[in-house]
């Protein structure tokens, strides 16, 4: 079963302002993520993982077909949180996906404390159908 684990960060929460972290705190955070990805790869569970550029560089593009597409520059003040990265994992059960998410959530922040990052877990639609 495949799941997408989406890591959300709240806007304006001090702990998530990585530019205020000490170098060793930042390094510990990066190392944590690297180790996690390596563990998932070694377990044969990692399908893909990416971190996303900050929302300040984001654009929202919309088109209704006829006119030129509408492009809005980020950051988007109405969003209370934003997606900072994701994993796609192929695992034996939903419980395993939750366990990976729980682990990712403990990534260290300032003072080496677990950030408790919010991870949204969604199943990828690749299950076999039951015939009706």
């Amino acid at each position, binding site marked *: 079963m495949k799941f997408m684990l989406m890591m959300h960060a709240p806007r304006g929460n001090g702990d998530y302002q990585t530019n205020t972290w000490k170098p060793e705190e930042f390094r510990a955070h990066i190392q944590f993520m690297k180790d996690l990805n390596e563990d998932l790869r070694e*377990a044969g569970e990692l399908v893909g993982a990416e971190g996303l550029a900050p929302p300040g560089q984001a654009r929202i593009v919309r088109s209704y077909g006829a006119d030129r597409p509408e492009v809005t520059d980020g950051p988007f003040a109405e969003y209370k949180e934003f997606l900072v990265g994701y994993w796609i994992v192929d695992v034996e059960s939903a419980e395993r996906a939750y366990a990976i998410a729980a682990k990712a959530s403990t990534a260290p922040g300032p003072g080496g404390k677990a950030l408790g990052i919010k991870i949204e877990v969604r199943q990828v639609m*690749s299950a076999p159908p039951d*015939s009706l």
Partner: protein
Amino acid sequence: MKTTGEHLLRELAPQVLGAVVRRYGDFAAAEDAVQEALTAAAFQWPRAGVPENPRAWLIHVAARKLTDAIRSEAARRRREAKIVLETPPEETMVPPPDEAPVEGDDTLTLLFMCCHPALSRPSAIALTLRAVGGLTTSEVASAFLVPEATMAQRISRAKQSIKSSGVAFAMPPPGERNESWGAVLHVLYLIFNEGYAASSGKAHQRVDLSGEAIRLARAAHGLLPDNSEASGLLALMLLTDARRAARSGPNGEIVPLDEQDRSLWDKDAIAEGVRLATDAMTRGAAGSYLLQAAIAALHDEAARADDTDWAQIVALYCMLMRMSDNPMIALNHAVAVAMAEGPAKGLALLEKIDRDPRIQGHYRLDAVRAHLLERSGKVAAALPYYEAAAEKTASIPERNYLLLKIARHRSE
């Protein structure tokens, strides 16, 4: 398109692996060496021709690769791997006469090893496809739409689990054999199911997992021809796969049995499946694969959906329910009862299933309720359940079927 050479390689893979493991003992290293030999053959045979004794050729090349690997490993560790190097590769070129009769046993032993309960099911599936099915890592990876490196890691993890749990290359003791055989059949069943998901979706480039599962189930049945569950599983696969051409619509949605164009069904596969199931049914106690095959046979034998022998199907589901307390079977039984005795009877049975925590929130419960309400003429009442089911399913063909159904009702 598969070439004859590819078929031959996949057939030979478990025999070659069995011979190499018995000779050298190290399953993990032997499995790697056999993969390399298969790759070499896939490259060389189309150019230089298939050797006279392809099995001996593969064993010879695999043995040489293994010896090389052990030699370099030994050099790296600065020690001698005496026992293995004592056998010159030349001697492995032609298998001794005593090897031939145990070929079947080797494949069986490999199946037991690869499907061992110590492995996670995804690992067992991957290892079975590679070590017994003779597929390459990249074929297995693409079949499951995961990166090749991830699949390689999953396979090597599986081999580590075998090593660390001390599973030997030997038949399980008689007392455990039934349970182990159940695990083997379950893995083959899971591979078939994965294929069912893939074939009704996109990705036409992927290995036909259902076809591979049928091939492996055929081998399993050939190894234990009197085992009624092996016959039942092969029959179930054939009878289900027979409907492949008819079961998805132009938008990749599921076409339910009663709407399928039955002229598209594979008559040869049905005939074979029915024959297997019938033979096995006369051999004594029927297990769950055989009962499911018997149900599939009743569907496949009906010329029109209206001709389906639902009373018989109800009886078979009752037998399945007595064998295992599984809410999915109870749900299928409710559908069969609704078809045989009217939707009200089926809906009444759902009340009890509703209380089973194991199936709560499962889309299929909503889908069945919607279906039975619709059959009772209560379309308005059915729609919210169709919607709930469409929201919960993790299968795209299933969701597309449900959404199209909702859309058709709304536009009526």
